[in-house]
């Protein structure tokens, strides 16, 4: 490959041609785009399922047609399981790190590639293989356990637990490999002058996330393997009938899955840090505080898993300790929030579409975060547990937080990735639809939860009908917004005008190379002499 010199006009897209060159590429930018295509596809599937769930809940089942699209509770449970599992394991967890992280981490620190390009490619194949296994279950033996696979139900149910769980295991390997790659890349491949404290905050976020991926995922891996063994060989560890302990499964599961929610949100915080400083034309306020608070969140997140188990029968002391520790996560998170707001203050803020998503993130994540602290309060959680309040909370965080940041990051870096601009007014309109639609969908769910509507039910009493109707209508608004976003991307790719080198006037390193970047990222290795945000 090196024999092919990078003559003028060459970039990573036209560097080599043909499908095969993509499937065998070791270029982190191409791998990022491969993740982008596949994650978008899974998002579409998961999204269709979400719309079906909402359609079922549009009216009580007594009502004709619409209230009964999914026929019965079994089908509802299956669709719910696939929706949750696909969105978590195939969309939000890989989302930002695998797409934007892969593409921009080396560019951000002036490296030619990630440390292990082949492993990077292998991790995409792991991801695809795991996803294939998981989705394969859909075609012969559907699974209906919910994405948490709680025992003992997951052992007893006749569905495809083993295959699904192996799929999640393999996807977990992909996640570990990506994280490992990022850590070594950050440690070893920074350009001359790029000290740790000159790294963009997005890199800090990816770095903290990678540590989490590395430390938490193995525990999930063994948990899933044990679950598979339990189902196949009845080993008895999680099965109460054999003296085992189903609550142990929950402990193991949440020991991963709580940190996992930070694997989902910390990268989003990184993207938002970039967006806020760029579009405020101002040095970010409290660079080190933001950088280290990512590490802080990562650290604390390991000690709070018990807040998912307040009503599981764990001891009251444990409940109180977990309640307290959970609230601690609020501290580093609030540090970030205040720093972002302080950056906005007296900045010359411009409301381009990426910035709209960043501001949308601040708003929605604030609601998601505050309700999270509410749920951390033990007595409140006992009341709200397994109601729609929880559903609303985690959608505010995961969708309102992570997905908003992903969209904002997409628009922000689109010109760099493809060298083209997109239709800004439609992009803003897509934001408006997603933002409003999101609140219309999920805010009523807080109220429903407070009224006592339980989650994972496919029918409800008439008292809940109006709010559910509103919620379902909101889901159609979100759909409209995402379709617009898709149109913006496709239209921009096909005939967007050529992008200027640095359309937003950003200061980070990736904007100093060509758009789209050449195969080796930089024509000459950059030498870094200042921090990432030297605005004023």
């Amino acid at each position, binding site marked *: *490959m*090196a*024999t092919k010199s990078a003559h003028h006009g060459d970039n990573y897209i036209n560097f080599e041609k043909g499908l095969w060159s993509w499937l065998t590429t*070791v270029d982190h930018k191409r791998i990022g785009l491969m993740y982008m295509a596949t994650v978008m596809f899974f998002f579409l599937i998961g999204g269709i399922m979400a719309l079906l769930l909402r359609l079922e809940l549009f009216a009580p089942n007594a009502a004709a047609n619409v209230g009964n699209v999914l026929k019965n509770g079994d089908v509802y449970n299956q669709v719910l399981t696939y929706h949750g599992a696909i969105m978590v394991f195939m969309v939000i967890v890989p989302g930002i790190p695998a797409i934007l992280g892969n593409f921009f981490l080396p560019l951000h620190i002036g*490296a*030619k*590639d990630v*440390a*292990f*390009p*082949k*492993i990077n490619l292998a991790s995409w194949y792991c991801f695809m293989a795991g996803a294939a296994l998981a989705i394969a279950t859909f075609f012969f033996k559907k699974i209906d356990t919910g994405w948490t696979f709680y025992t003992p139900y997951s052992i007893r149910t006749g569905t495809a637990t083993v295959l699904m769980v192996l799929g999640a295991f393999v996807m977990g390997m992909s996640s*570990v490999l990506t994280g*490992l*790659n990022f*850590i*070594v890349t950050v*440690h*070893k*491949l920074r350009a001359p002058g790029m000290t740790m404290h000159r790294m963009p905050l997005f890199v800090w976020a990816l770095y903290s996330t990678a540590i989490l991926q*590395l*430390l938490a*995922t*193995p*525990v999930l*891996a*063994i*948990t899933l*393997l*044990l679950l598979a*063994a*339990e189902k196949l*060989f*009845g*080993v*008895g*560890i999680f*099965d109460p*009938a*054999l*003296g*085992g*302990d189903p609550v*142990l499964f929950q402990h*193991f599961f949440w*020991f991963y899955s709580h940190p996992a929610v930070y694997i989902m949100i910390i990268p989003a915080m990184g993207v938002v840090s970039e967006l806020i400083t760029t579009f405020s034309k101002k040095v970010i306020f409290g660079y080190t505080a933001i950088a280290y608070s990512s590490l802080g969140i990562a650290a604390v997140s390991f000690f709070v898993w018990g807040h998912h188990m307040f009503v599981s029968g764990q001891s009251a002391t444990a409940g109180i300790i977990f309640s307290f520790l959970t609230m601690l996560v609020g501290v580093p998170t609030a540090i970030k929030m205040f720093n972002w707001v302080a950056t906005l203050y007296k900045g010359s803020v411009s409301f381009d579409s990426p910035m709209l998503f960043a501001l949308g993130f601040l708003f929605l994540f604030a609601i998601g975060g505050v309700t999270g602290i509410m749920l951390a309060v033990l007595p409140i959680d006992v009341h709200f547990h397994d109601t729609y309040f929880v559903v609303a909370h985690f959608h505010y965080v995961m969708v309102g937080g992570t997905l908003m940041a992903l969209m904002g990051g997409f628009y922000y870096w689109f010109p760099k990735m493809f060298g083209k601009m997109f239709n800004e007014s439609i992009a803003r309109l897509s934001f408006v639809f997603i933002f409003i639609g999101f609140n219309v969908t999920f805010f009523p769910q807080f109220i429903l939860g407070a009224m006592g509507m339980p989650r994972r039910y496919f029918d409800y009493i008439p008292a809940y009908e109006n709010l559910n109707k509103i919620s379902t209508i909101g889901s159609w608004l979100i759909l409209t917004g995402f379709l617009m976003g898709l149109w913006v991307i496709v239209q921009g790719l096909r005939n967007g005008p050529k992008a200027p080198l640095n359309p937003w006037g950003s200061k980070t390193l990736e904007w100093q190379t060509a758009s789209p970047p050449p195969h*080796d990222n930089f024509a000459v290795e950059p030498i870094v002499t200042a921090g990432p945000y030297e605005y004023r």
Partner: protein
Amino acid sequence: MSTDSTTTANGFRAAHVSHHFKDATQEYDSGKQGIWLFMVTEILMFGAILVGYAIFHHIYPDMFEEGAKSLDWKMGFINTLVLIFSSFTMAISISLIQQNKTKQAAMAMATTILCGAVFMCIKYFEYSHKFHLGLYPGRFLDVAKVGAEHANLGMYYGFYYCMTGLHGLHVLIGMGLITWLLIRTIRGDFHSQYWLPVEGVGIFWHIVDLIWIFLFPLLYLVG
């Protein structure tokens, strides 16, 4: 990844520096860090199952005692020795490579693979003997037939098979990797300027060995 295959003075192919690294040192340091980080994940994975073991050992001490007694500690002890010896030959092979003693290094690797095979054979005999006695995991263990004192002795065997099974799988993977190294060694890929893969697999093998050193007393001796 671009590579330049010039030949060193002593006739070996020179180190391959992938195009995104500045020099061989940077590549070596990165590779080594990567391997160690991966080992962290391995240790955590086994760590979690050990936590499960500790919890149930605490809840059912008698049942675990009965289980440990039913295992043949001599078999486990021989296997411990075999693995420790194989770790030794693996370490030797790295040092031989560093001295350009390719032939001897290949011999050392082959010995390591052989040790792995011996380990797996002994495991095979242990497993089949247990199956013969009806000592299956969990719900498949027939308490009456086995004459177990504790109704949930099956759980002990659940742990036994899960822990040793997962470990055995790692031994097999390690044997595969060392075979790959052996082929490359014979081909002359490794020499005093380049031995990273050997060291990497070596570290993996040592960790697998180390994990066994934890599993052996916990399963066979502690009771």
